[in-house]
């Protein structure tokens, strides 16, 4: 039995804007085990980003409790791939990717090695010294993914990281992510709008209701690994789960 890595109990986040109270999500209770791959799926505005931000410690919850286990003090607990990429315009690709490592004061040549490894993996080698304004949207996104990977956290929080990529790059990076995940035993929490992507990647999918987001359903994806995208898409299991989630999500979207 694997250890519990993240446990949320009745987690609720409300924002107060002037006199209005906006509930971003409410009553989220779930248990994520060490090394599991979770996807959060739900209609736009249902609170996925906010939930990730609460998990990252960037916002505090209004109600409920969070338990997160930090095993190895030499590693950061979590690193986030932000929905807006948010790479620094004033740093070149190399320094953007090195950011977390530099903040942790690792040895410069170790930082160089790690950074070069991910620059290569992300196909960014020719752009190592380019500034963000010289990059395409998809390249910026890859820089922000590399920044998180390079930081080697215990939990990877990824907010629609592949949204701006073309299909080919998306599949490549999905496979790369799975490889890294399988090797490292990290816990991954991944937000996506793509049911297809969620099924291909995850152990569990949390489907959220429309705003204000609650848990609509949690799906176990028991497709064996390692997974190959072509095989998965043509398997009957995939079709069943896809149909299930699709109908459930459509119901949520058509309410509004």
């Amino acid at each position: 039995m694997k250890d519990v890595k993240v446990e949320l109990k009745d987690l609720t986040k409300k924002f107060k804007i002037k006199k209005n109270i906006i509930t971003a999500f409410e009553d989220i209770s779930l248990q994520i085990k060490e090394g599991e791959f979770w996807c959060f799926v739900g209609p736009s505005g249902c609170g996925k980003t906010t939930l990730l931000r609460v998990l990252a410690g960037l916002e505090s919850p209004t109600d409920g409790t969070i338990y997160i286990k930090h095993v190895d003090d030499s590693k950061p607990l979590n690193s986030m791939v932000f929905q807006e990429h948010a790479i620094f315009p004033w740093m070149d690709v190399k320094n953007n990717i090195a950011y977390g490592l530099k903040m942790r004061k690792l040895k410069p040549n170790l930082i160089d090695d790690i950074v070069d490894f991910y620059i290569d993996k992300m196909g960014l080698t020719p752009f190592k010294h380019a500034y963000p304004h010289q990059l395409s949207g998809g390249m910026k996104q890859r820089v922000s993914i590399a920044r998180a990977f390079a930081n080697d956290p215990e939990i990877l929080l990824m907010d629609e990281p592949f949204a701006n990529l073309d299909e080919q790059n998306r599949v490549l990076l999905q496979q790369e992510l799975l490889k890294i995940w399988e090797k490292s035993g990290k816990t991954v929490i991944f937000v996506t709008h793509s049911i297809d992507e969620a099924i291909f990647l995850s152990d569990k999918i949390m489907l959220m209701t429309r705003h204000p987001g609650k848990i609509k359903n949690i799906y176990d994806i028991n497709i064996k690994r390692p997974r190959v995208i072509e095989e998965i898409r043509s398997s009957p299991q995939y079709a069943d789960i896809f149909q299930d989630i699709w109908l459930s999500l459509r119901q949520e979207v058509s309410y509004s």
Partner: protein
Amino acid sequence: MNNTNVLKKSSTKINEKSKKDKKLKDETKSNKFIQQIISPIAILIIWEILADLKLIDTRFFPAPSMIFHSLINLLTTGILLNDLSVSLFRIIGGFIVGAVPGLIIGLTMGLFPIIRNILDPIVAATYPIPKLALMPLIMIIFGLNDLEKIVVIAIGTFFIVLMNTAAGVINLDKIYMDVARNYGASKKDYYLTVALPGALPMIFTGLKLGMGMALLLIVAAEMNGASSGIGYRIWESYNIFDIPAMFVSFIIMSILGYVFTIILDLIEKLIIPWKHS
């Protein structure tokens, strides 16, 4: 073998293409230069003709040839260079004395809300006072000397740099602070790796505006208690009704502004290579 050949071919093609591009660029550049120089030359010619025909009052608008004559005169007597060095000392001195604390206090106000809250009322109350209105007081306090002129320019520069620097830090997208926090940046790391570089474009805007302010104030500051300087020369030409010399000073001021802008642009390009042009 075959492959490298193909590569070579395509790379020479690219070279040719970039050569063509460069030629194209050079052509449009020289075209642009010609277009831009037409109107000043035309104005000078028309001005000269009008002056020669006495169609404009040359007491107020001396012919370009007269101005040029005066320029040569001021140059050969050494007056112009002396004026220039005296004014430059005051402008640059005042600019530095004003910009450095403006930058430091602006950054501090941008970074620390507490300090911002404490200093904001003072800045808000003193900033709108026209700097020229303060001149008599500054003259009384410091006397009529270089220091007083430097202080006048410094005060003008100080506020502009401060406002822009603080705004540069405050208006930085909040997401960058989240990234810094998420990736374990300490407060100091945040200032050095995010706040300061992120505010640089606004800081430079402030410095450029500050420099404009300094040029404006030098003329006022040299109105009283000066015996040389470009600004002094303008007032002196007024007193002795030497209008051509006044026009020479205008030209010098214009060149000064242009040169300062170019220098600041250059420094900006060096310090902010990541800014889109």
